């Protein structure tokens, strides 16, 4: 393991590996990525893999649209198949509030150049998912260019490409403390010794909270367990990710054929928890069989859980940390880190490398909470 580096990135998820890759592309190659277990073993490898551009805030829509453009070329750029598939996203509205919000969202999304359609329930069934039960559905929005990719293969592709550019990635190396000399960052202490570096990037998902605390920094992030299941593989019968905020569900058919999906339990208490529950299995099955009755006889083969690193406005924490020199945040992705990772990682890398970022990440700094400049993202599932 290198003992000195220009930059240490804590967290071997998609965000940490992508930042390492884009930094190396900008010429900062003496970087060490430290991961407590293995690549994508945290939030990245547990997520549903969806890539959505239909957001309620301009900021998220822009980040997601630019990320989709990156995803479109990523397999070729990184030299490995990441299973990117543009099967679309079908978003179902059930309530008055949904309909009002979706109508606003579509105006915003179209103003940014996103091709999104408003569909009646019958059109959604006729044109997009013939097996869908649209009972109770008021309207739907559909963007054909939304899609999905394989989170593990994407992370591995970024990691391998970063390694080829000179980045070192150390697995099974938990970071125990960030080191500083007054406000100046000097490195990290790990279970395998220290690494000196003037820049430390905190990309540790929910674990970014205890990590920042070693410097006395309290990040406004709460971990929430989110559960998910996968079925046996089936012949392809629908292409899009189907989601609803009010019904509470997201599910898609993976490239491999299995149906994969979950929902956020509004009663779920905050805290570190990655255990699976029977309640989830039962409720999710009821939701699935309601929306697609034909799934009745399909078998669930596995369920698991991961954690959302949720911020009060469901927007990530990016960029430098007030009171420190060289301490950067890239966490708090609130359940949609995978889909915006390419663009966000590029912006954070540009900032660290002293370039002018393509998009100003200032509004996503954690100091927004102290300043009261908070505009919450509403389209969170």
């Amino acid at each position, binding site marked *: 393991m290198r003992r000195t580096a220009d930059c240490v990135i804590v967290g071997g998820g998609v965000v940490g590996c992508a930042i390492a890759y884009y930094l190396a592309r900008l010429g900062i190659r003496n970087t060490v990525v430290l991961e407590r277990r*293995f*690549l*994508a*073993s945290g939030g990245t*490898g547990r997520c549903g893999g969806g890539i959505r551009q239909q957001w309620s805030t301009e900021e998220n829509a822009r980040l997601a649209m630019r990320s989709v453009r990156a995803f479109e070329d990523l397999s070729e750029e990184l030299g490995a198949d990441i299973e990117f598939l543009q099967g679309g996203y079908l978003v179902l509205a*059930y309530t008055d509030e949904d309909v009002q919000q979706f109508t606003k969202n579509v105006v915003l999304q179209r103003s940014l150049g996103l091709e999104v359609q408003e569909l009646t329930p019958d059109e959604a069934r006729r044109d997009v998912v013939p097996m869908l039960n649209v*009972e*109770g559905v008021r309207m739907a929005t559909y963007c054909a260019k939304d899609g999905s990719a394989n989170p*593990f*293969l994407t992370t*591995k592709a970024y990691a391998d490409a970063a390694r080829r550019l000179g980045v070192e990635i150390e*697995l099974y190396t938990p970071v125990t403390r960030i080191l500083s000399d007054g406000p100046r960052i000097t490195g990290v202490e790990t279970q395998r010794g220290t690494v000196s570096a003037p820049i430390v990037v905190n990309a540790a998902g929910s674990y970014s909270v205890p990590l920042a605390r070693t410097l006395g920094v309290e990040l406004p992030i709460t971990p929430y367990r989110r559960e998910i299941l*996968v*079925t*046996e593989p089936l012949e392809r019968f629908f292409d899009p990710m189907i989601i609803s905020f009010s*019904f509470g569900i997201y599910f898609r058919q993976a490239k*491999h054929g299995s149906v994969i999906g979950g929902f956020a339990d509004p009663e779920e208490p905050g805290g570190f928890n990655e255990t*699976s529950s*029977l309640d989830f*299995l*039962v*409720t999710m*099955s*009821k*939701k*699935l*069989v*309601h929306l697609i*009755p034909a*799934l*009745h*006889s*399909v*078998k*669930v*083969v*596995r*369920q*698991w859980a991961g954690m959302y690193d949720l911020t009060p406005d469901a927007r990530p924490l990016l960029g430098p940390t007030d009171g420190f020199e060289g301490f950067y945040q890239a966490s708090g992705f609130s359940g949609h880190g995978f889909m915006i990772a390419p663009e966000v990682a590029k912006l954070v890398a540009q900032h660290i490398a002293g370039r002018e970022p393509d998009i100003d990440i200032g509004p996503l700094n954690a100091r927004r909470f102290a300043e009261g400049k908070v505009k919450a993202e509403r389209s969170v599932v």
Partner: protein
Amino acid sequence: MSAKDDIVICRCEDVTHGEIAGAVDSGLRSVEEIKRVLRCGMGPCQGRTCSRLIARIIAERTGSPVSEISFPTVRPPSRPVEIGTLAGKRHEKNR
């Protein structure tokens, strides 16, 4: 190439000895990591057949004893269950 290359180790997902050996040689060191790249152990049997065989291949190629190879977390359900069974007979609307 070796004579073992075409032997199917994961019967649910059709993953061969050659593919698993290649994954180990590329630097993957646990059954869980190999599972996430090659899907072995993600099928209906959930790795009951192949996990030990994969651990043995890792051990053979890295020189570590099998007892030091880490296995994937065992995930519920313990056997595949129909969604309709889990949802109950009356699929009451879950709204």
